[in-house]
């Protein structure tokens, strides 16, 4: 979409807004932000201290229980506890502290510059790719690596290639090994490998980061897969402890991947083209991009904490540095602004958002219009065409892609 409402023939979701509207909206959001900053204090500090204490107790307790994991009840309790502890560490604690949400407390132990999380990715690498790139260039195709993590087609305007067909499988694998996926894309491994093929050596700086990441992965793996099971050998619980750690890391991977998919991938969430972003994007325009490029998950308090309050992805993207416990509190005000300016506040329960995000991954793995124009009756012929598009030369493929697109548009027209 384009972000500039005065561009000729613009029909996007903010076509009804004038430049003044957008700037006014920005000022109203600034006011909400200021109100939180003015009232930030003891209550908020007590909240993060409590979450950290709960997480550490849970981690310590679960690891202790797992020392007796040869007994099935201990195995179950310990594994569930450790999974929750790891999720809390990554989401409500790590992600948010590294965002600088708690820097205002001036606590040298709870600060974005010193925090390290229970994840393969180093906090330093993650802060660069997440805070600087993803939050600044949110949902700009090609600029924001989070959008498809550089391995997926997430927008109709991105070119379809036969390898796009693999993206549901790629996404599934990425989900299972998500912490390593994050580490790889924090290092921009794809880019470095492409450059290496062209004969360019990676910079010394990159090599340092890669070294640090490998060291971190080693430490993490040693803790979970060697040290803890070894201690458990005292009660012959080594193998079960190892299994518990594998399950906990896997659960954390699947959960965090799902939550993050819900934030920007569901159908209906806008993506942006770099050429459409004004050179000097104003604060108001930036806000609007965040508002339209994010989606919330509705649900219980427990879900909000377990998602690191990324269930309030919209609020988080508008105000990435406000304490996470405040997102739920300002959500009604933010939502009221969406209504006032007639914008779509994208919110749905988790199963719905996850399904929607996967639907998009699947839909875009196929040529534009393919899914829309395919039904039970024409499925065989469509499949044959798809195989032709994969096997055929560039000209054939281009022709077929155009056909799919036209057929898709036609079937949508018919449905309407």
């Amino acid at each position: 979409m384009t972000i500039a409402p005065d561009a000729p023939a613009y029909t996007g979701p903010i076509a009804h807004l004038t430049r003044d509207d957008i700037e006014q909206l920005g000022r109203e959001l600034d006011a909400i932000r200021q109100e939180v900053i003015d009232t930030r204090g003891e209550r908020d500090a007590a909240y993060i201290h409590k979450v950290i204490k709960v997480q550490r107790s849970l981690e310590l307790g679960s690891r202790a229980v797992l020392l007796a994991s040869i007994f099935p009840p201990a195995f179950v309790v310990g594994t569930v506890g450790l999974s929750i502890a790891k999720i809390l560490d990554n989401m409500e604690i790590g992600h948010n502290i590294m965002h600088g949400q708690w820097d205002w407390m001036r606590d040298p132990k709870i600060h974005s510059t010193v925090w390290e999380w229970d994840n393969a990715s180093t906090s330093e690498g993650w802060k660069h790719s997440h805070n600087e790139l993803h939050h600044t260039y949110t949902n700009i195709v090609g600029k924001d690596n989070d959008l498809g993590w550089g391995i997926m087609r997430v927008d109709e305007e991105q070119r379809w290639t036969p390898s796009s067909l693999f993206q549901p499988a790629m996404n599934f694998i990425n989900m299972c090994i998500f912490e390593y996926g994050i580490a790889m894309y924090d290092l921009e491994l794809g880019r470095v490998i492409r450059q290496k093929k062209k004969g360019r050596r990676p910079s010394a700086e990159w090599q340092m980061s890669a070294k640090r990441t490998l060291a971190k992965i080693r430490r993490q793996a040693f803790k979970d897969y060697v040290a803890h099971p070894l201690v458990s050998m005292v009660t012959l619980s080594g193998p079960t402890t190892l299994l518990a750690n594998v399950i906990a890391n896997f659960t954390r991977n699947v959960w965090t991947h799902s939550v993050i998919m819900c934030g920007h991938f569901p159908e209906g969430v806008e993506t942006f083209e770099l050429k459409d972003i004004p050179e000097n994007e104003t604060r108001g325009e930036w806000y609007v991009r965040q508002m339209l490029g994010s989606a919330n998950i509705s649900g219980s308090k427990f879900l909000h904490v377990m998602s690191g309050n990324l269930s309030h992805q919209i609020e988080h993207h508008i105000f990435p540095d406000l304490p996470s416990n405040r997102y739920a509190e300002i959500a009604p005000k933010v939502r009221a602004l969406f209504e006032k300016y007639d914008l779509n506040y994208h919110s749905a329960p988790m199963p719905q958002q996850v399904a929607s995000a996967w639907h998009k991954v699947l839909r875009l793995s196929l040529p534009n219009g393919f899914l829309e124009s395919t039904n039970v009756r024409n499925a065989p012929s469509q499949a044959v065409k798809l195989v032709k598009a994969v096997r055929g030369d560039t000209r054939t493929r281009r022709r077929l892609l155009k056909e799919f697109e036209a057929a898709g548009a036609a079937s949508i027209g018919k449905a309407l």
Partner: protein
Amino acid sequence: MAEISTSPALFAPGEARRPALRERLSRKVWGVAEKIATPLAPADYLDMFNPLRPGADLRGRVVKVTPETADAATIEIKPGADWNGHTPGQYVRVGVDVNGVRHWRAYSLTHGPRKDGLISITVKAVPDGKVSSHLVRRLSPGKIVHLEQAAGDFVLPSDLRGHKFLMVTAGSGVTPVIGMLRNLFPVTDEGVVEHQRLDVTVVHVAPSRPDSIFIRNLESLAEAGAIRLVTRYTGSEGRIDIDTLTELVPDLRERKAYACGPAGLLDNLQAWYDEAGLPLQTEQFRLATVVTSEGGTVAFTGKTVDAPGDRPILDAAEEAGVLMPSGCRMGICFGCVLPMKEGAVRDLRNGELTVARPGETGPEGVPIQTCISAAAGECVIDHPAS
């Protein structure tokens, strides 16, 4: 502090190696603990159970808060195991979270080293004083505060013989002096135990008697003949100047002088003593407030940059050729955060002022986002510029 000497002669040859072995073993255990605790440190978990244990960051637990005057209170603290002790007259830097934000302040220790191992500070709630008000009115027994080791050279000489002393105290400047006096003249149920023959004159300056912290202690020491006390209540008797002081203390020049109080009084005294060629030991609590104006300068390690009040420090520094860490340049990514050791900056987004005062701000400085902060005075930022 008493050192416990472990003479090797006291051990049989085999035993002498034992501590080393134990140390090696404990280091091993600690190493394993570190590997299991990663990415946290074992200390993070141990702190949950015992924040005052040996090896922990220095902290203290508030034991008792006793009101002294309407707006002052004495706070007794059990310091962590690694507390090194102190000399009367020294101060301790105390870190407390006020409204969720960590603040550090220096307070004189108002007792000599005590048998029960507690330390005490006496705090006067100053108007608009966030930290002092919090300590006097909101701190309760059981709370944990952060500490640094005692510091300061406002102490008596180790050999007191042959000295006559003058102590000029103004307002809460009495606190380090009361620490010295309590140590020199311990009070028991029978009254002041004068176990040293000393000639001490205390000149105490305060707005009025009820405003004076520790005035009863000073008066009872005077009644017991331990000290000569001269009070000057400026509310009724007017300000004190050097002429009045020499009148009140005729043998002023013969006395080893100590002074503690606000900057104005200390500056006047210092000037007079300098002129007279006499030594004066002073202690000041608060540094002059940071002047905030339109812009200012930013001193990096190796280079000082002029920084206007309406532009981010990041831009000004980069234009001056300083290699700065940077990120989103809009205040969201915290990729540009640097520690400010001293000075004031204004948040360009809302005009909020962030101030770092040496002595009050933590030793690591106040982290500021250079991309949204403009200088508001002379700032010192810990970052190499060359």
